[in-house]
């Protein structure tokens, strides 16, 4: 009896989660490709790591 109630409760939570995803999923997907966002476009490969020291060496004097 307890096991059945637990299973029912789990299924209930699962369906609630699915409903939530159906309602808000679109928003989440859309947010990742929003205007001016740097996500979900065509990045040209992964940037290599550069330390701040390396940047200072090649940086340009602004003042």
């Amino acid at each position, binding site marked *: 009896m307890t096991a059945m109630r637990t299973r029912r409760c789990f299924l209930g939570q699962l369906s609630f989660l699915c409903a939530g995803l159906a309602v808000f999923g679109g928003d989440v997907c859309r947010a990742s490709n929003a205007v001016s966002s740097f996500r979900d476009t065509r990045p*040209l490969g992964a940037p*290599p790591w550069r330390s701040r020291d390396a940047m*200072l060496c090649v940086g*340009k004097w602004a003042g």
Partner: protein
Amino acid sequence: MADPVQQAVRCEICPKTCLIRPGQSGECRIRVNVDGQLQSVTYGRPCAIHVDPIEKKPFFHYLPGTEALSLATVGCNLHCKNCQNWEISQANPEDMAAYSLSPSEIPALARKHDCLSVAYTYTEPIVFYEYTTDSSRVCKDAGLRNLIVTAGYINPDPVRKLSRVIHAATLDIKAMSDAFYRDVCGASLAPVLRGIDIMLEEGVFLELSNLVIPTLNDSDENFRDLCRWVREHAGAETPLHFLRFFPLYRMTHLPPTPADTLIRARDIAKAEGLKHVYVGNLDLPDGENTFCASCGHVVIRRSRHVVTENRLNHGACPDCGRALHGVWQ
């Protein structure tokens, strides 16, 4: 021993005019005092290089249907609590991976990817000012167009100089409220409006946007003030994009902007006489379409940043012949 106050430098790019002591950076995190000299430490070190549809900037009246090579380094002089690109805009340069890309390498990269323009975007091109201006000069000489996507929080002299090397800007007016700028962005409104006036004087093609955040800048009064200012300063044909907010960064307690709010903003803008008003980040029928300001027919159809139909005839409406405000080739 050198006096750190004596060796402090003042950055004059933006209205914050940070006084920076040796070894420290300004609020933008990337303009650093190195031994008494101000250095832009992300020069030639973009953290993002993407190929985007130009509509994603958003530019709807500038070379529609083309792609823009889009560059950004870390850093921003604003600290908007709703920033959607906060992972790079609010990062320290030493914490982010970066490419090595000198200004002279940009034209070849743009051509390789069939881009007609280079966009300085995602974070704030004002803070990597020297990289933006040097790259823009090289790209302009190579026949490419330079675009900036900016919040426009910049001092008069730098914006005037910048305006001479860029072709177009899409500028986000956060709200027509100084309190909003102060509380949400850590900035102020007046320098932004002054910067727009200067860009227009210098002949920069301008599109404007306004990210509508529930409860913070979604009042009729805000929309009306914004539209009146745009009409009086930039002209009724200047494209204005109302953008939907999504809960991100430090503003996850607010819901996405309801569609009704954006439709209300668009209605107010049209009532105030603006001719080209768009709704972005929302699948709204006609939200991204361009209409003729004279006969009202659809001239350019778009769906999610993609041009699905372009009926322009030499920059004019094919039905009534009225020239459409924009740069079309």
